[in-house]
Structure formats: structure tokens, C-alpha cells
């Protein structure tokens, strides 16, 4: 069992993918909370908080977006260095998608993708939810793929 650089990459990717899965789940829960807030049968005044749920979650989402993208970029760089072309190829579409998403975000001064004034539009909300589920599925599959890749590189040399 040779502990090559590739195996090390896969191991690190495995751990970081766990973090990405966590982010994706948080993302999904955040949008679900935003969406179902109104169905809460609490009396009206309880929802009149000066800081709305919208603002809280949008703020949190700001803190999720950049770490997720940076971690993913880190993976790609690592696999590039380890010459794992198949894995790199599988991650390229997601990298391209992240770049496109960040370039076409609404005008804002801080980092972030979500504008509190438009996020409540049902089509934007639905899009973000779908995005969250797709990413969760992708990261889960990646997790198992990296697990396989790690065992393969450990065993096969």
C-alpha cells in the first residue's frame, strides 16, 4: 500500500466533501425556512421582528457561498497537481458553473449571491432550492467516488 500524493489528495477531498455536504444541507434548510416562514401559524406580531428572517438567512448564506467555492477550487488545484485527470474532468463543469454564478450575481458591494429584495420571488426561490438539491446529490456522489478513488490508489500501487 503506497501512500502516494494522489491517495493523500483523495483523503483530503473526502474530508472536505463532508464539509461541502454540510454546506449544501444548510443551504437547503435555509431556503426551506425562507419559503415556509409564512405558513407558521404564530400570531402576526411575532413575525414583525425588526430583523426579518429574510435578512438573517441571507446574511448566513453570504458566509456559506465563498467558502464553498474556495474549497471546490482547492480540490481542482489539488487534483491538477496529482494528475488525476478523470476526477478533474468530473469537477470542471461544477467549477464553470460556480464561476458563471458568481459573475452574474446582482450588484452588491460585499461578497454573496443573494439579494434580500429579490430572493422572495418564487421563481428565484425555486431555482435556489433546486440548485441546493442538485449540489447535495453531486457532493454525495463525489464523496463515494473519492472514497473509491482513495482505496483504489492505496491498493493499486
Amino acid at each position, binding site marked *: 500500500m503506497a501512500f502516494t500524493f494522489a491517495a493523500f489528495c483523495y483523503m483530503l477531498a473526502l474530508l472536505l466533501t463532508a464539509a461541502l455536504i454540510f454546506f449544501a444541507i444548510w443551504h437547503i434548510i435555509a431556503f426551506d425556512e425562507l419559503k415556509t416562514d409564512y405558513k407558521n401559524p404564530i400570531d*402576526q*406580531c411575532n413575525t414583525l421582528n*425588526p430583523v426579518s428572517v429574510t*435578512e438573517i438567512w441571507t446574511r448566513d448564506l453570504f458566509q456559506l457561498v465563498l467558502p464553498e467555492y474556495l474549497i471546490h477550487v482547492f480540490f481542482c488545484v489539488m487534483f491538477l497537481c496529482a494528475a488525476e485527470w478523470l476526477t478533474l474532468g468530473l469537477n470542471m463543469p461544477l467549477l464553470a458553473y460556480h464561476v458563471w454564478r458568481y459573475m452574474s450575481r446582482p450588484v452588491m*458591494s460585499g461578497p454573496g449571491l443573494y*439579494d434580500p429584495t429579490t430572493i422572495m*420571488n*418564487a421563481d428565484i426561490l425555486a431555482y435556489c432550492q433546486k440548485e441546493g438539491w442538485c449540489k447535495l446529490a453531486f457532493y454525495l456522489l463525489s464523496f463515494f467516488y473519492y472514497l473509491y478513488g482513495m482505496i483504489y490508489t492505496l491498493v493499486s500501487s
Partner: protein
Amino acid sequence: TSVNKLLYAVSYSLCVYTQVETVLPPPQSLEGGIYPGTHVFLPFTAGWLTSPPFGYNYPAMQPGYQQSPTPRAGSSPSHGGYNAPGYQPYSQPFPSLSQLSTALGGLSGVSEQEVEGLRPVNLLQERNLLPLKRGTPAEPNLSSNLRKMNCSPDTFRCTLSSIPQTQALLNKARLPLGLLLHPFRDLTQLPVITSNTIVRCRSCRTYINPFVSFLDQHRWKCNLCYRVNDVPDEFMYNPVTRSYGEPHKRPEVQNSTVEFIASSDYMLRPPQPAAYLFVLDVSHNAVESGYLNVLCQSLLENLEKLPGDSRTRIGFLTFDSTIHFYNLQEGLSQPQMLVVSDIDDVFIPTPDSLLVNLKESHEMVKDLLNALPAMFTHTRETHSALGPALQAAYKLMSATGGRVSVFQTQLPSLGAGLLQSREDPNLRSSTKGVQHLGPATDFYKKLALDCSGQQIGVDLFLLSSQYSDLASLACVSKYSAGSIFYYPGFHHVHSPAQNLKLQQDLHRYLTRKIGFEAVMRIRCTKGLSIHTFHGNFFVRSTDLLSLANVNPDSGFAVQMSIDESLADTSLACFQAALLYTSSKGKRRIRVHTLCLPVVSQLSDVFAGADVEAITCLLANMAIDRSISSSLLDARDALVNAVVDSLEAYRANGSNLQLSGLTAPAALRLFPLYVLALLKQKALRTGTSTRLDDRVFAMCEFKSQPLKQIMRLIHPDLYRVDNLTEQGALHLNERMIPQPPLLQLSAEKLSRDGAFLMDCGSVMYLWVGKCCDEMFVRDVLGCPDYASIPPDMVALETTASERTRAFVSWLDSPPSFCHSVLLSVRDEPSAKSSFFQHLIEDRSESAFSYYEFLLHIQQQMSK
């Protein structure tokens, strides 16, 4: 039991129950007196008209109309779709049409209105499509007692007055489904309910309304979520008839627009006092334009009429490259100016006495207003630090909330939020789309959100002559529920029309009703949901709108979708509840409920289409699309909307005519209105339009109520030099002539007449070269035609009683501020603003109406 009854009777006779208050234009009379116990139910006429009803009294067809030649001999007169009680069936129906009407009438008991709404109209052949006068839309197909109780269409209107049962049916009709609301409209009759318990559904929290069903005396079924609730005991007693056991006779269940007095459960904090802050630009540019004089005069006149009570607070802030605060403490000999020059970190110089109690410091405020215009006459400052001034305003107002009125005359050039000039004048007439419709920075949006969180509404008055990036500045009002006013090229001497407009707007702005710290929630029957909101507010959660200030001149629109089939119900209901603090510190809830039938046939959907509401909703959608994607996309989408809906009608209906362009009578004006929309400043291409003008026109569409928007899109044109008494209205002992509406085409203008065009906020009076001398002399007060000055602002001091009566009647619906009347002479130089409204004509870059119809026909046959 009888003891219970006695107890309730005694206890409630001690409280005041229901009041019918008359909301007169001076808002102070509202919320004032308390009327003991008496209650008057007005007979609610169709369509919730204030008494006396306008426009419903004209008897038969006006002779003027019958004489106008219709191109097709023997065709039925093209009225209908807008039904008056004096509706008369068409005299010569087509043979096949009578078969259609009997067939339809026999089959499903469809009313005459429905048949009329479905009557096929060949747009290419029938020219006179306009109704005689702009009236209220067709009524929904409900039983008459439901119709009586239903909400007024001026307050609450749906694009389809018969809701389709499923989303699939809605998609087949290719028409948008949405609501247009004007919830805080000035009302003359408003039932106010002061009971201790507000009866609401336990699960969905809907307020009890006229469309619930009482299962028996003690249980009621919610019409939105179908849950069965109990009737509380207090509700069983009806204070009006002093009877027990008839909960369905209570005023909440008899009126679809009611106002509740909210208890402390509905308050997060004690109701705030009315607080007004004026933030004024005093740079050199601003002083040159002279708006300060106009503003200070207006404020001095209207200081007592500002809505509020003894706790009302007022403050002033002026800024150029530094920020100036004014200490208005009563006791000082004169107002004291405090200058803060550190604009990167703005701080408030003194903790209080900058926002002072109006009653106590009345004299100081007046001194300041008298001195303010003169204080800055020799200023040399050319910079404008708007961003820091707004930050200072925010800090000053965050404790209480209230209204900030910002007056700006140029591009903010200093400090946070500074803006660059983004407009390229060479691209003003570009046909390839328009850039820079969205904000350049999110500074103003973030500030607006902060203000909204502290219940501060920011209103913007932009009085600039050059590009001021309204697209970015407008964000500060859009998300804090403020209003935007724009006076391009304002100068107190050189632009008398703008001057007059500012004066009139200020008068309305300072004296109109206002609500503070408001939230609005719109609920629909189970199965319908709202997915997009349009208007000036912040969407706090999926259906809760946060409005820091609410005023009677703003309208909202929402788009809906049908999530589940509505097959098991025959009525769909919508309720808009607005919780606000009145200017006198009382917490109130205004509730409007609308009920519409649910239909399962596509033809019924078309018969109930409300073309004005559809046009306004499409305008809102087009503006969103042009900001998020591109203007050309938005224009294409509008044309596609017409093509798709007419195709859907053709595919569905029995094909009476295969050639020509057939539309149902309910949608006969749809292509005309969409063409008018495409020629608006907001959406036009190919004609030189300044970017700020365009952005302002977009903001107007998104925030004005439906009536104003329709007048913007399709103004009313009348001939006024030959007003007759025929068919006139008699109102308050005055005789108001009712000339017919004319089509917006130069064909209808004639050299020897004078024509009035009502565009909502502005009215144009076009005088032909050979117009009757008597008219010119009497009505305009000029000795002859040649002496009418161009762009004269004709005031209401004309000698002719009839004309004046007509013009002031046009101007009179209480919700709008007064229009400015401009005169236009028949010569090339003075024409552009008037002629751009004649939308049926061809212009250098746009179709005429007939060409547009041909274009649509072409698109349909692809």
C-alpha cells in the same frame, strides 16, 4: 341565556361599536370624532360607487355616437364589455351570433354579460372600439347579493374576473393571473369596528368577511382554508340591531372593506408618533433652481395640515458638501445651524432638539422656513453629499421611524454612495436596447433596507436638469415603501409647468393621509398562491410585505399561480389586510376581501378577462424583465402576450370568421393597450428618451394605482369646444357635460376644434389653428389664436362654466393630486409632447395601430 344577553347588551352599549366615518379629503376628519352607536348602511350599488354614482345615469345612446359612421353597415354598435346597468342589447346581431347567444344562454345559464364578453370582434374591420366613456370593468358573474357585498374594483381587481379551475386551464388561456390592489385608497365611506375581539380563522388567520359560510349560529367556515371555527360569544351580539343570535348581520360580515381597531396584540411597540424629516440639497445648483422657495412656501401653508396629533415631530437637514443640522429647541431666539463636515463618519451633533415636537416649536419651525431660502443664496458649493446626508437622516430617525423627504437636484458627487454619470447621450435613440436600467451600487438599496427595518420611509424628489442616475437613487424609495417624484429641468422661473406641478404635488404630499410602520398580507383561497410582488415595499417573507409608510396614492400588483385544482369550490376569495399606525397613533387594520367565481370552461375565462388589469400587470412584468434581462426581450414578451392570447381564443372558440383578426369583446382593446405600452417612455426604442425619464416612467408603472396607469398608457381624448348639454351629468347642482371618448389618432383632431387630453397628472389642451374665436377668448382668456403663448399653463379661471366644470370633474376623483393643464398650439414646435400620446398613428420608429394588428396577424399565422 337571557342573563348573558343582558350582560352583553349592557357592557357593549357602554362601548362604542360601529362607526361609519366619512373620510373627506382633508384627512384630519378621520380618526377624530366618535359617533355614538348610530350606524348607517349605505345601499351599495354595483361596483362600490361613492354616492352619487358617476357615469351610470346616462340614458340611451348618445346621439353623437350614433351618428359616427361605422365602417360595416349593419354591424352591431361596439359597446359592451363594460357594462352599465343601463345596458342595452345590440340592435342587429349577426345571425350566427344570435344562435351563439341562445346556445350559450340555454346551455349553462350564462348571463348576457358573459355572452357579450365573448362576442367575437374583428379588429381589422371594426374601428370604433372605445367605449363611450371609461367606465368600470365588467362585473364578475356572481349572484346579486354577493356582487353587492363584493369589494370595489377600484380597490381590488383581478386580471381574470372568472378564475380558471386549474393551472392547465390558465395556461391554455395564455393570460396572466394577478391582482391589482389599491388598499389605502381614500374612501368616503369606511365602516370602522372597535370590538374587543377580532374574529379570525384559527389556522390561516383570515379575518372574518362577507363570504364565509355560517354552518349554524355558533360555527363558521373559513372561505380560504375551509376550516370550521367557532363563533365567539361576543360576536353573537349585533350592536347595530341590538339583537342576539345573528352573527351574519354584523358589519364585519356585511362589508368587504372594513377597518378594525387593533388591540395591543398587534403592536410590537407603542404606536409611533408621526415624524417628518426634510433632507434638502442646498448646493449651488439647487439654489439656482429655486425649489427651496417653493418648498418653504408650501410647508408654511400646510404646516398645520400635516397629518398627526400633538406628538408630531419635525426636523430639517440640509446638505451640500457638508451636512447641516438645525437646533429648533423652543426657547432659542432663532434656529441654530450645526455643521458636520466629517462626511465619512457622520454623527449626530446633539442628542435631541433636532427632531422637535411640532406644536411646541411651531414658531421656531416657521422662522427656519422663512429664513432657509435666503441662507444659501451666495453658496459656491457644487458638490452634493447625498449618501452621508441619508445616513445622518437614518441615525436621526431610527429611534422613532417616520417619513424622510429627500430633495435632490444633481448627481451625488461626494462621500458614500457617490455616483458616476453612466448615460451616453448618443445612445438615447438606440434600437438595440438600453443599458444601465439597474442600480450602479447597492448603497441605496442597503440603506433602504435598513430604513425599512426601522420603519423609516424615504420619499425622493428629484429636480435635476441633467442625468442623476435615478436608477440607483430610486432604490432608496423602492424598498422603503416611499414615493418618487421627478421634475426634469425644474427651474422656478423658466419652467412654469414644472413649478406649478411641484406646488400641487407638494400640497397633496403634505396633506394626504399617511400610515406608519405598516405590514400587509395577502391571503388567497387554498389552491392559489402568490409568487411575485410588484410595488414599493420590502418582501419580508413569502407573503408578508413590510411598508414603512403607506400612502393613498400607491398601488401594488401581485402575480398568482394555481397550485391545486379549485374543482371543489365555486368561489375563490382574496383578502388583503393592511396593519398600520394612523397619524394619530392608533393601530388599525384595513381589510379588503374580494370574491370571484371559479370556472372550468376556457370560454368563460375569456369572457371574464379584465383588459385594463391585464395590461397593468403585463406592464409590471415587462419592466421587471427589462431590468433583469433586456428591454428588447420585454418588448417581445409583450407582443407575444397578445399573439398567444388571441391564438388561444381562436383555437378554442367556434370560428365565425377565418379571416381577419378576431378577439373576444372582453379583449378587444388588448392590442391597442399593448401598442400604447410599447410606445411609452418606459419601453420605447428608436425615439430619443433620456435615461432618467425612462427610469422614472418605469417607477411610475410599478407604483401607481391602476386608474393612473391606464391614463398614462391610454389617455382620454375629448373634444371640448363644442360641449353640449346632451347626456350631461347633474352633480351637486352643476351640469357636467359628457363628451364621447375619441380614438388617439390625429385623424380625430381637426383644425377648427379644441381637444383635451387627460393623461392623469397632466392634461393637454390642443387648440386648432382655425378654432372658434369665441372659445379662444372665453375659455383661454386670450384675444386671438396667435396670442396663446406656447406652453401656457391654463389655470381654472376660465369664463366658460361648462368647460371648467368638465375639466374639474375629470380632475376630481379624490385619490389623485390635481392635474396640471397645459395648452398646445397647432404648430410644429409645440407638438411633441402631445403628439407622442396619439398612439394609433405611425411614428418614425413604431407601428400604427393597423400595422400592429397586421403584425400580430402575421405572427399568429406562423
